[in-house]
């Protein structure tokens, strides 16, 4: 029941915050924070339960499963479940949700209640996406994320907010329709094969698909998720939406909404379409690599701080696409890690950009520069997350990108080598950003306060999280492992593997029983 409560608390919290605003805007903020706080406690409880569950070897795929009939005649059920893949993403959602509320504490002053209503409803939609086990329900939640997000951008956004909001809406809605068609196609072909017309995930996994029909259905899903991810060439909505959204909106977009795309690829596209999806892998991986390099190039050219961060997301999500379609355990573990770490580090960068904009009312980097002297704490935090973004070892993003590249090396040496060039490009744009914002001569004599208790509190937690994930990522790997293996099993198809090895076949035998031999002897 915890799952249901988590979603219900957000839905109710959103409504209450909307009403509470009538009494005082502060009340709305506290209600939102309270709702997320309850969810955090529930989420931590879920973690404890998960730890007991995995150690007890109880079997079964889902830690918690709720299944109520919804529209039985059409095979639609209200079906939720959580496994090792969903769990970290749920926690990330709540964690970044809290950060989003705190980040908007002073920045949002108009229609505070409605703002928090939208924020909490987006979050509840995202939670729903991460736990829905019925494709109809999944699509419902998918759409639920969309509308409040549209309002967040269109009402509280910056200068070009209407344009950005409509663009966001059209891209996601258009691709969502393709997914709906694909879901229906899947539903009917499964029903036609078995006589059992159902939207249940577990049933649809068994659908026997092949040929052109399978490819088209797979592409329907793929495009929807690729738009959300976003993968090249479906990315143009991202830069405008991220840039124009208010800070909380950017955090939720970059930190969470993008992850639903990655989640969809891992949970649905490859397990359901198996062979078909993995035959498509070279194309998807190529798109991933292009995204890595193209996003980095675009990021480097920007003069708007938020736009730069937004484009860097395209680059980082390219790694996700590459890793997902490499489809081996190393790459997939890296992908999950990348989802979490990118959520945290990019979320932090957006908060930073938002705080700067609140202080100096511009995002133009040409007007910044030399801020280190004025606001050393802010600058230090900015430097830290720039380093996280460029994949410095010791921080979580490095672990993620290393594993993704290591895994995809097995699938394709060429793609991996090209993707690795993205590591160089990341240094170029991340350090260029640090230079233009914090280093160099001051271009305009800004008077701005440094990060105080509220900001440093947020940032310390985010920094601690990234360092923790960089130095001790094992809990995440352990949590995700069995879920990923199950999904790999579902896909029932061999991932790509490069044929480059000369003598690797002998290695496992040699390794067995050779206890750490002395170096060089």
């Amino acid at each position, binding site marked *: 029941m915890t799952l249901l409560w988590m979603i219900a608390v957000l839905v109710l919290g959103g409504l209450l915050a909307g009403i509470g605003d009538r009494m005082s805007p502060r009340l709305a903020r506290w209600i939102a924070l309270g709702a997320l706080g309850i969810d955090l406690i529930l989420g931590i409880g879920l973690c404890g339960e998960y730890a007991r569950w995995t150690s007890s070897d109880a079997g079964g795929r889902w830690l918690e499963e709720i299944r109520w009939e919804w529209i039985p005649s059409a095979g639609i059920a209200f079906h939720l479940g959580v496994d090792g893949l969903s769990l970290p993403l749920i926690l990330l959602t709540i964690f970044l949700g809290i950060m989003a509320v705190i980040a908007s504490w002073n920045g949002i002053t108009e229609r505070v209640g409605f703002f928090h209503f939208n924020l909490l409803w987006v979050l509840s939609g995202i939670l729903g996406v991460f736990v829905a086990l019925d494709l109809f329900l999944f699509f419902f939640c998918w759409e639920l994320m969309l509308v409040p997000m549209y309002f967040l951008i269109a009402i509280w956004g910056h200068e070009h907010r209407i344009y950005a909001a409509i663009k966001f809406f059209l891209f996601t809605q258009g691709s969502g329709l393709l997914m709906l068609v694909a879901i229906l196609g899947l539903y009917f072909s499964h029903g036609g094969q078995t006589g059992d017309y159902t939207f249940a995930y577990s049933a649809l996994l068994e659908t026997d698909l092949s040929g052109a029909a399978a490819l088209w259905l797979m592409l329907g899903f793929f495009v929807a998720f690729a738009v959300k991810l976003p993968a090249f060439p479906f990315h143009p909505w991202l830069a405008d939406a991220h840039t124009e959204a208010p800070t909380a909106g950017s955090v939720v977009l970059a930190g969470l909404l993008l992850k639903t795309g990655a989640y969809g690829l891992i949970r649905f596209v490859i397990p359901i379409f198996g062979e078909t999806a993995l035959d498509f892998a070279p194309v998807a991986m190529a798109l991933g690599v292009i995204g890595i390099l193209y996003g980095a190039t675009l990021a480097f050219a920007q003069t708007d701080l938020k736009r730069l961060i937004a484009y860097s997301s395209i680059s980082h999500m390219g790694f996700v696409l590459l890793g997902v379609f490499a489809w081996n355990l190393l790459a997939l573990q890296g992908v999950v890690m990348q989802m979490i770490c990118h959520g945290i580090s990019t979320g932090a960068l957006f908060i930073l950009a938002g705080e700067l904009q609140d202080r100096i009312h511009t995002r133009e980097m040409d007007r910044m520069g030399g801020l280190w002297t004025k606001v050393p704490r802010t600058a230090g935090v900015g430097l830290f997350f720039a380093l996280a973004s460029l994949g410095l070892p010791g921080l979580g993003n490095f672990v993620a990108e290393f594993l993704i590249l290591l*895994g995809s090396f097995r699938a394709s040496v060429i793609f991996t080598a090209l993707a690795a060039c993205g590591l*160089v490009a990341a*240094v170029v744009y991340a350090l260029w950003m640090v230079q233009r914002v914090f280093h160099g001569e001051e271009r305009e004599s800004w008077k701005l306060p440094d990060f105080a208790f509220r900001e440093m509190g947020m940032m310390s937690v985010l920094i601690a999280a990234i360092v923790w994930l960089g130095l001790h990522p094992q809990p995440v790997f352990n949590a995700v492992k069995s879920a990923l293996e199950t999904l790999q099993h579902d896909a029932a198809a061999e991932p790509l593997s490069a044929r480059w*090895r000369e003598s690797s076949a002998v290695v496992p035998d040699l390794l067995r029983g050779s206890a750490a*031999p002395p170096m060089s002897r």
Partner: protein
Amino acid sequence: MRDLLFLIPLSPFAGFLVLVLAGGRLPRMAVALVGCGSVGIAALLALLIGCRFVADPPEGHFLRQELGSWIEVGGLNASFGLYLDALSLVMMLVVAVVGFLIHLYSSEFMDQEEGYSRFFAYMNLFVGFMLTLVLADNLLLLLLGWEGVGLCSYLLIGFWYKDPANGYAARKAFVVTRVGDTAMILGVFLLFYSFGTLDIGEILYLAPRSWELGSTTALAAAALLLGGAVGKSAQLPLQTWLPDAMAGPTPVSALIHAATMVTAGVYLIARTHVLFELAPGVMRLVAAIGAATLMLAAFSALTQRDIKRVLAYSTISQIGYMFLALGVGAWSAAMFHFVTHAFFKALLFLGAGVVIQALQHEHDMFKMGGLRKELPLTFATFVIGAASLAALPLVTAGFYSKELILTSVWASGRGGPWLWGAGVLGAFLTAVYSSRMVLLAFLGEPHWAAISRRPGSRMLGVLAVLAIGSLFAGLLQTPHLLGNITIFSNFMEQALPAARLAQEALWSETLLQTVATGAVLLGVFVAYVLHVRAPRWRETVAGSALGSGLDRLWLTGWAFDWFYDKAFVQPFTRLARLNRRDVVDRIFAGIALLMRASHHGLARTQTGSLRWYAMGIGAGTVVIIAIILYL
């Protein structure tokens, strides 16, 4: 005592944390205490553990310490594990001890700078990462140290962040080395899939058992690792970042860009020497890169005006010697030169720092001169350092290490007269530019107005200690004619194989050494003639068309920067600028535009005029009937 090994890297990290969290509020005294103290503890422990290691060697001549697991996923198993053997011990000692001395020097050198605690925080972080690099027992942890020192190099080159030129130099260093690191990461992947482990010991154990000599995989793996080494150690073709890195404070140049970080590439090759020995082609490449780099950089050092750039090019050149030694399989010779180089190059940089500070941050040697009387102790130590760099015979450490390299190059099956000749030419050039530097900066007429600051006891003390090292560190290893001491190579052979040298007769070895020594003395003489006896000759040569052309070419480091700028930087920035508004977005915007245009077009047909509508209906009917009839 051995159990405290983990404290050696951890202590500087702790210092970093203290300085980052509380540094702004601490008084300078406390900052210096934390900054120097944390590295001091590391140095002390390194010395104690080192002595113990030598006096009472552990079983198998290595120590391991596991500090906990890091990543354990899908067959990949990397831990925080330390590994101490003769090779990492030597590296660790140099890093910790020289690092401590430079910290001590900096506590005085930097005491009038803003950001005192930021400086020591970065320096401590650097030492921590560097010690992690040399002590790592697996490639992933090594990579952590490797990238970490690169980060600190970036932070410290750009320490004076207000000048955009410093920021540019810092970014250039990070980006160029990252190019090499990317190759290295791919090499690590290749090793992982070949052996199923990242543990260095296991890889080295398994490699000869599963790879054939000269197999493609071995060549690829060694070449990719070499990519990383070339970037970090500023060798051809990735050497361009080091001269610009001199934008950082001088102690940074001494610590990072002379004594320790830039030799990480040498360490990497020595550490994974088994892989390189399985790839003879790559070994030849290493030697060729070393020989070419040492000559090109030495030529560049000849014409620089900035004293720190002379030292930077000489660092590139001296590391070229180490690569040359590695390439011919003279592993311990390379490490020996690393040790002596750490002493004399740190000494030279710190001496240059005194001079620069004395003359209001003047870097141009032609605006120095005559400092001998004003800064006598600095002069004395600088001469010792320069003599050691030039490998002045018998009395300097640099002589013994360079002779060992040259002799090994001649006698090794992989070396030969050509590589040896390159080394001797380099030795000649080194003597010329070292002498030129001393002559211009300290002797002759003064070209300055006043001394703004004189070094205090901490700075001079450190110079003296390093000078002693630059003189006597060479006595750990001497040629046959001069006592044949082999303490260093004996010790290194616990970890690295002995160089396979053809047995030369004593007379031929002596002859070779005489020739090399002659080249050095000739170099000193040439510098003396050109700068003291007959400066007009120099002016005539420099004035000629060929002379001035070479001068410009060498001054700009053989125009590598120009080439890279044209070939990579400009195309990339142009492309990025051109595509700032994202051509893909334009396409989608084009679709939107098309929609809007057709909307306007169709809206125009809604005129409200009945005649138009009637005609439209009529025309439509005709068309539909036509279609039905004819299709």
